[in-house]
């Protein structure tokens, strides 16, 4: 049994979805929880269209039903978890009727899902940004983890919790310490023992204070505490929620340096642009996928013009500041990492050359890598770890409530042929490309909008014009657009910047908007945004 929750993997992770399909072909049932009837939902046995931002209520309701129906895995709970009593008490108010009212779905479906999940032989929960692009992202994730702990559907072949990473190397970035509070291998910067290890290896003192994540950086810019910004391969001038505000902050900096392969909007705003080579096609190195698989990237073409490898640019920068970062050699850098991060210890460069790469943890050179992570939950001694904690969680809807002025919920997402802000994917000629607003037929009719009309979408933060498309994949009251075409449609002008203090992610998935028609289809066809 598969729960696809807040993920349109068919479009956002197509090859991963091939593997899901194999499971479905072999008889797995799939429940798809998503406000939209996505192309992934088309493959599901049951699609459940909850209101945006009501995931915790649903998860709690499912948890309550599992407990009340006597379907919780008592042995697993006793052996491998802690905090069950508090969790059970916390979900008590979430009767299926209460959940039905919050989520906008029939109560019986809540019960059905609970039973399907709890009684399945093997079950997985897969999620993506539908869970994490919310102001309470981490709580959303924890609410799903609770279900796995309740049933023991975790840490075994065929059962588990599967977050899908949106980018080819976000996992790798985190593993390598490109997050504010960790060294490579997830060693906390505020842990003196770890710090000592890294200080020895790097031959210098290291700052013990965790850094700022992107959202906090923008707050620091606003306060005037942060005056210089060095951006490598990001496009916050398009990708931040409430992007007009974000651009104003970037404008206000004393100096903005951008290192990128293409002239993004952020690069256009920069004082200095450092042209970089394309990591995956022009240079040597590694990336790490969602399943913690470390694989080699290799240069296929040589970089154009003055573009240089990131490693060279960074080392030169360090030199210019009078420091040495070590050899400019990807393999040497990798070996340094292996010496510091135990989970990468066994991943010799030659082993990575072999097709398929290796999945961490891989502590020594004889270790085959690890297909899944949480097998320890099933060990008699839990491998000496603490039992996994349940989390008691409250439901909070989206921070921006619908109002008379802004009566529609706008949610954002990804389409198959495009990627993030479209800097890379916008360059090829996709016959599938569509840039505009998807609307439910009833809402469109109420607003006097026909397919192809040009509309203005307004949120409390600004307004954007785009073409409308009437679709059957949305329930009433919900509108949808992708974020791939900022040059045509500046969607993040609209999105809600309220962010999750635990992860730093903004609530891209839920803004309140108003939609008005500005031109009919014929006029729009000549005047409006169209991509081709």
């Amino acid at each position, binding site marked *: 049994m598969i729960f696809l929750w807040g993920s349109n993997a068919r479009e956002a992770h197509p*090859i991963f979805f*091939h593997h899901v399909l194999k499971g479905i072909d072999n008889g797995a049932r799939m429940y798809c929880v998503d406000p939209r009837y996505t192309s992934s939902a088309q493959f599901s046995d049951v699609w459940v269209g909850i209101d945006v931002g009501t995931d915790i209520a649903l998860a709690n309701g499912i948890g309550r039903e599992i407990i009340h129906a006597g379907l919780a895995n008592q042995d697993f709970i006793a052996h491998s978890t802690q905090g069950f009593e508090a969790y059970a008490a916390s979900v008590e108010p979430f009767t299926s009727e209460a959940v039905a009212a919050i989520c906008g779905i029939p109560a019986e479906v809540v019960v059905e899902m609970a039973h399907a999940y709890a009684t399945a032989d093997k079950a997985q929960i897969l999620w993506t940004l539908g869970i994490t692009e919310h102001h309470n992202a981490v709580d959303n994730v924890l609410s799903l983890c609770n279900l796995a702990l309740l049933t023991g559907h975790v840490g075994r072949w065929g059962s588990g919790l599967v977050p899908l990473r949106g980018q080819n190397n976000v996992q790798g970035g985190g593993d390598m310490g490109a997050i504010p509070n960790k060294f490579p291998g997830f060693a906390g910067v505020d842990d003196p023992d770890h710090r000592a290890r890294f200080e020895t290896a790097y031959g210098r003192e290291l700052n013990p204070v965790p850094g700022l994540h992107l959202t906090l950086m923008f707050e620091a810019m606003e306060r005037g505490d942060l005056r210089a910004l060095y951006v490598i391969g990001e496009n916050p001038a398009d990708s931040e929620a409430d992007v007009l505000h974000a651009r104003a902050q970037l404008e206000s900096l004393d100096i903005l340096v951008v290192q990128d392969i293409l002239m993004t909007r952020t690069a256009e705003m920069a004082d200095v642009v450092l042209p970089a080579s394309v990591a995956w096609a022009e240079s040597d190195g590694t*990336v790490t*996928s*969602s399943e913690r698989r470390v694989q080699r990237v290799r240069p296929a073409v040589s970089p154009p013009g003055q573009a240089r490898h990131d490693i060279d640019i960074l080392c030169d920068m360090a030199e210019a500041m009078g420091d040495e970062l070590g050899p400019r050699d990807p393999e040497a850098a990798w070996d340094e990492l292996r010496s510091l991060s135990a989970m990468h210890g066994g991943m010799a460069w030659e082993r990575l050359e072999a097709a398929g790469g290796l999945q961490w943890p891989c502590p020594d050179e004889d270790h085959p890598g690890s297909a899944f992570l949480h097998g320890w939950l099933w060990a008699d001694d839990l491998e000496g770890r603490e039992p996994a904690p349940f989390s008691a969680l409250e439901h909070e809807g989206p921070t921006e409530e619908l109002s008379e002025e802004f009566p529609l919920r706008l949610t954002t997402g990804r389409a198959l042929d495009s*990627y993030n802000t479209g800097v890379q994917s916008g360059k090829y000629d996709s016959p599938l490309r569509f840039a505009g607003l998807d609307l439910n037929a009833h809402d469109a009719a109420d607003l006097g909008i026909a397919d192809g009309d040009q509309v203005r979408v307004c949120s409390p933060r600004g307004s954007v014009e785009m073409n409308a498309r009437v679709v059957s994949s949305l329930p009433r009251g919900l509108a949808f657009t992708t974020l791939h075409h900022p040059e045509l449609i500046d969607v993040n002008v609209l999105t809600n910047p309220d962010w999750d203090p635990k992860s730093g992610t903004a609530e891209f998935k839920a803004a309140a908007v108003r939609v008005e028609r500005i031109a009919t289809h014929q006029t729009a066809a000549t005047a409006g945004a169209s991509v081709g």
Partner: protein
Amino acid sequence: MSSVITETAVTIQVDGQEVAVPEGATILDACDAAGVETPTICYGPTLTPVNVCRVCVVELDGSRALVPSCSRPAEEGMVVHTDSERVRHSRKMVLEFLATGVDVSQADELGQWAEHYGADPDRYVPGGETMDEPVRVQDNLYIRDYDKCVLCYRCVEACGDDAQHTYAISVAGRGFGARISTEFDVTLPDSACVYCGNCVAVCPTNALQFKTEFDLRQADDWRPEDQTVTQTVCSYCGVGCNLELHVQDNQIVKCTSPDDHDVTKGNLCIKGRFGWNYV
């Protein structure tokens, strides 16, 4: 994610040589293990065998007709001949037949086998029926030149059950009039096609061709001998698909994916397959 292989071995005889293969292996696998090369057209390592081309047939003791080695499971004690008169004859005829109706000029492997078996497509009645299809250029990503199509079903399988589950194309019509087609032959952009290019990747005859290759060939500038192939990882989502970048004159000219990679099995999505031209 390597699947568990039951290591019960089956021993069969290929051209007098005993070979042991795991249970579930095919006669073709046994031929490979015995070092006997076998021509194949419709077989693909990532696809469920459809055994339609019949070029891989072998003689199996006890079987009246020849059997397709690509799909027939090896069974203990089988005695197989791959180079008997009958086998050579049927293989030759299949290759000859194909060359009489289809433009096989870009199907290199097929051409080599045709030579090996002495196929002579010129001995047929002049002016016989051929595929006779126009090249379909309907977008900028890939083209369909069904004059080159041998109806091996590989594209249909890749678009359908074996990988993509999009089912944008199917075999339509019957007999010699059978063609690969969308519904009512609507153009690809009007069909269900999501441009994963997985069909292109499995086509053995170049009937399906990336537009980049097609354009270079039109300009007489397609030079495989000058191309390098580099394996790397796709820059888009976090699945970690491996890419093989084919580069000519420091330009990427097409993108494929290794068949033997656990994650992709030769497949990609539109972004990985075509989304490289910003490089």
